[in-house]
């Protein structure tokens, strides 16, 4: 008979945290570059904020609207009131999703990703995440991450968008 304290998973946690940071900034960037993302955000309430992260102890990513602009608010869940939480059940599940072994849609259907908040908000955010993933990832990987890869997008939308999102994500404006 023995009693054990559950250990940590620092490497996985770091990967997930870095990825969330990157995605957070990419959403902020995509909101400036892509019309569809703008449209989705425009339809959401003025101070709308959502968080994506994992149980039981994070990490988290908080993104929301402030004075009409979309901003990445960092990783502190308590930094402002959150309307919608997209919750991944465990760090390992988050790793599966964020290393593109499992698409967001698939993760949801595998009960790994739960939404806490109003459904229409969740659908909006999922559409935004899908678009951002298409910008960030090469076609081969992105087509694993989304239900269908938007092959009907014009070449210029893809190229200009991708360049714009990447520059802004890395430079943070």
């Amino acid at each position: 008979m023995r009693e054990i304290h559950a250990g940590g998973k620092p490497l996985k946690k770091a990967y997930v945290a870095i990825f969330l940071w990157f995605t957070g900034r990419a959403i902020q960037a995509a909101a400036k570059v892509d019309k569809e993302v703008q449209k989705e955000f425009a339809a959401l309430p003025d101070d709308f904020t959502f968080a994506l992260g994992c149980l039981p102890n994070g990490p988290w990513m908080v993104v929301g609207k402030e004075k009409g602009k979309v901003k990445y608010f960092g990783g502190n869940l308590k930094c402002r009131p959150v309307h919608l939480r997209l919750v991944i059940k465990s760090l390992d599940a988050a790793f599966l999703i964020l290393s593109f072994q499992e698409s967001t849609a698939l993760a949801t259907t595998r009960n790994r990703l739960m939404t806490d908040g109003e459904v229409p908000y969740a659908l909006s955010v999922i559409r935004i995440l899908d678009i951002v993933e298409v910008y960030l990832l090469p076609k081969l990987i992105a087509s694993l991450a989304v239900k269908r890869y938007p092959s009907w997008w014009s070449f210029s939308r893809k190229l200009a968008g991708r360049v714009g999102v990447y520059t802004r994500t890395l430079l943070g404006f």
Partner: protein
Amino acid sequence: MNLTNGFAFTCPFKTNSGNKALEHLPVELAGLNAFKPLIITSRELAGPKAIGTLINAFGDSGMTIGVFDDVTETADLNVVEQIREIFLKGQYDVIIALGGGIIVDVAKILNLAVSLKVADARQLSPATAIRDPLGPFVVIPTAAATGMETSKYAVLSGKIFTSVHLMPGLVVLDPRLTRAKDGKTVAEAGFAAFGRTLEAYIAPDKNPFMDAYAFTALRFIRENLASAVNKRCNKKESLAVANAVAMSGCVISNTDQNMLHRLGQVFQNTVHVHPGIIIGMCLHPFLDDCMKKDSSRIASLLLPLAGDDKYAAMPEAGRAGDALRDLCEFSYEIYRALKGKIPRTITEAGIQQYLMKDIFDIINQEPDGAYLRTVIDRVGGSSIKA
């Protein structure tokens, strides 16, 4: 299926199966209002690797976990009492059984003891009344599972406890744990689950709810058991078999047709032969008899065994024969793959003559004892008797 007479069905457990299933445990437990689990297992029977994998899955949860890993094949109510004290002293709030067979039996009775708040677990007996659902209880089967883990039965020192409340609330099947080290273990579990579900599937009084579990289990075992036994990289196949084995626990808890199961139990309790071995060898004589009684029921087996196309292609008159042929092929494949590691007759199992007498004594007490004897006789029991 005839519904006119009415029926009842229940399957209280939730199944989580697949990649990283263990890592969902902290969230699952929180959903049960449980935060300090006590793991019941055995270093010897489940293996230190499985225990390590389970504990790692709690990583980053900040939880404190108790581990009792000393369950042995001979565990009895004294062991349960010992763990009961640990459970109370450590203020644990959920039981997780990791492994199969006796480990889960001990955990089930432990759950009974702590939920009924008895002063001493040794007071418990099959006559103990179990009215309300018990406390949160999770079963994590390994490849050594027999199928009874998810059932309403618990057997300890030959005493059989029966209640749907003994069934777990959650069953977690993780490919890292259900993968078998040797083909023999998988084959034993597979045969046991196969025989039990098969008997329920061809029963005249089956209901569509139980049937859904039985159908799935039969097809999974038929499609996967041979390759799970054969292949080295058999993660996917052994997970499918483990799923079927877990489902068989639900099936056996919802049927009165359990002749093969009872035969397996007798041998397990008397001579410690795995029930899967006995069920495997008795399948053919048993099905031959069913065929003589009502071949249409055997015909219905062709669908889960052979699949949609073969079933539809075969005219009705030929289905029963085809189902039996398919079954022969199936068990031949398994036996061949194991190259004699699993006995095919009572004689091969090497059961001593004086023990066979004990077995027949027990069988004779069963209401259908005379018939059961003829089954055993046909798989080599008679040669030992003589």
